[in-house]
């Protein structure tokens, strides 16, 4: 394991310290907790947004703490949901009197830990609402299983619900918009290489020299299948095909696209992928309102990428294009 770290056990703590030192204008640490909140938290009179999850997905989620997106982010151990006490603390610190929306990715652990925190905060009289993001079409959606995973599409929920909260909307309205994003966002990824959880010290899976994993999860969970590496175009076509099988977008409708690097992928390759994704959408007369390209929801040093498509209506588009000022996403 070759990593630029000091101590596998301290990596989350040291990362959080480094993040606060890098972005003091945006975030501050909640002392004693693995929680970063806006430097000016709590923002009074605004619904607050809290997200979080295991570490190792940086810039998710602390990178999206700032005006127009999140109010707080909770960091678990690497690839492990944070614990309820941590989430509870975040909720208490960011609440500005209008309640708190928890943005949870659909993993059993995340849901249970965030739910326990919500119960604790509600007992304190804080209004809490929850949304669960489940954009990964690699996993079959069915009610008798745990359903689809939440991956890069979560960033669109942060962006759009965050913009809505900034308008002064109430908790139910912010939750409604978040649910609308979730209903309209789909993603799927592929990996060229595994990654190594620092505390584990070795990769959780291995791939042969020319083998790739299609549809893997952002914690190295196995995907739909393995295959020989194909061209960027063929791979993009497969992923976009799966996404559009699940999300009906008609000719003339508008979408936002995210080409997300998993941490070890050169931007050059993401652009090559985007060329094909854009062409595929253009071929169906689907308009792209905005493309995000880069590392938004990573898996440590994993090489690979995911494609996310978000179907827009007037409301979602306006909120997507609204300003944001956070460490990892700035737009104006």
């Amino acid at each position, binding site marked *: 394991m070759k990593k630029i770290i000091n101590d596998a056990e301290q990596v989350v703590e040291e990362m959080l310290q480094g993040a606060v030192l890098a972005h003091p204008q945006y975030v501050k640490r909640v002392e004693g907790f693995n929680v970063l909140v806006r430097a000016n938290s709590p923002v009074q009179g605004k619904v607050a947004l809290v997200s979080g999850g*295991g570490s190792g997905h940086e810039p998710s989620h602390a990178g999206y703490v700032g005006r127009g997106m999140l109010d707080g982010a909770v960091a*678990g*151990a*690497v*690839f*492990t*949901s*944070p*614990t*309820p*006490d*941590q989430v509870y603390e975040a909720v208490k610190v960011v609440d500005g009197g209008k309640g708190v929306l928890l943005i949870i990715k659909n*993993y*059993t*652990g995340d849901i*249970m*830990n965030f739910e*326990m925190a919500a119960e604790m905060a509600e007992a304190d009289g804080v209004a809490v609402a929850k949304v669960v993001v489940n954009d990964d079409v*690699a*996993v*079959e959606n069915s009610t*008798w*299983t*745990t359903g689809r*995973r939440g991956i890069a599409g979560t960033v669109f929920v942060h962006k759009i619900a965050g913009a809505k909260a900034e308008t002064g909307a109430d908790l139910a309205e912010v939750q409604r918009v978040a649910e609308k994003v979730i209903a309209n966002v789909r993603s799927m990824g592929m990996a060229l290489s595994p990654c190594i*959880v620092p*505390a*584990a010290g070795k990769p*959780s*899976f291995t791939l042969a020299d020319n083998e790739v994993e299609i549809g893997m*999860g952002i*914690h*190295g*969970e*196995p995907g739909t299948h393995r295959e020989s590496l194909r061209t960027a175009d063929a791979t993009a076509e497969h992923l976009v095909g799966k996404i559009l099988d699940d999300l009906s977008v008609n000719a003339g409708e508008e979408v936002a696209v995210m080409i997300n690097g998993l941490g070890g992928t050169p931007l050059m390759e993401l652009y090559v992928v985007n060329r094909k994704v854009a062409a595929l959408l253009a071929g169906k007369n689907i308009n792209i309102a905005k493309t995000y390209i880069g590392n938004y929801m990573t898996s440590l040093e994993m090489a690979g990428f995911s494609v996310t498509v978000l179907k827009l209506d007037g409301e979602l588009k306006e909120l997507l294009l609204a300003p944001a000022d956070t460490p990892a996403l700035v737009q104006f």
Partner: protein
Amino acid sequence: MATAIAAIAALAEIIIANKEKLTELDAAIGDADHGLNMARGFEAVRGKLAGAQAEDAASVLKLTGMTLISTVGGAAGPLYGTAFLRAGAVLQGQAELDTDTAAAMLKAAIGGIKERGKAVRGEKTMLDALEPAYEAFTQAMNEGETLLQCLELATEAAANGVEYTKTIIATKGRASYLGERSLGHQDAGATSSYLMLKALTGFARQHSPGV
């Protein structure tokens, strides 16, 4: 209570000793952290209990549950944490640990896990070790066996439950994403449940008057 602390220490020992094994099981069909999470939690429990000599058994279990909830994370943290909290609640005010109380504790723990995780037996989770263990325990109890014998039979049933998880498809937890490809793999959480029962049985054997 010294015995309760020692019993939890035995659980901590077996989990920490099996950190890599549990992580490897989770790697195959999950996200390769179950052993890391559980070991982190039980290290913390060890630390907490080191400064808690005078507590009664119920408090020890409660402290264990709270500590697991606030240090394990993932799915296992809330599930095992809730289990220990519920088991501790049963013990509240009980002077001694007899077979009946042990059965009630196991039942309460399983109830907590099912409530929190919304899973049932047969979904390839820790319940596939724990529920058969509970059944074996109560059957032995009804046949008049000692606490140690009940535990031994429960552990055996849990071991079979772990084997059984290899033959079924996961429909809860991270392995459910794999659908049919989860077949043939052993569930990590069922394994940690079995290990804890095994450690408890070993502990009971050492402290049992008959030995």
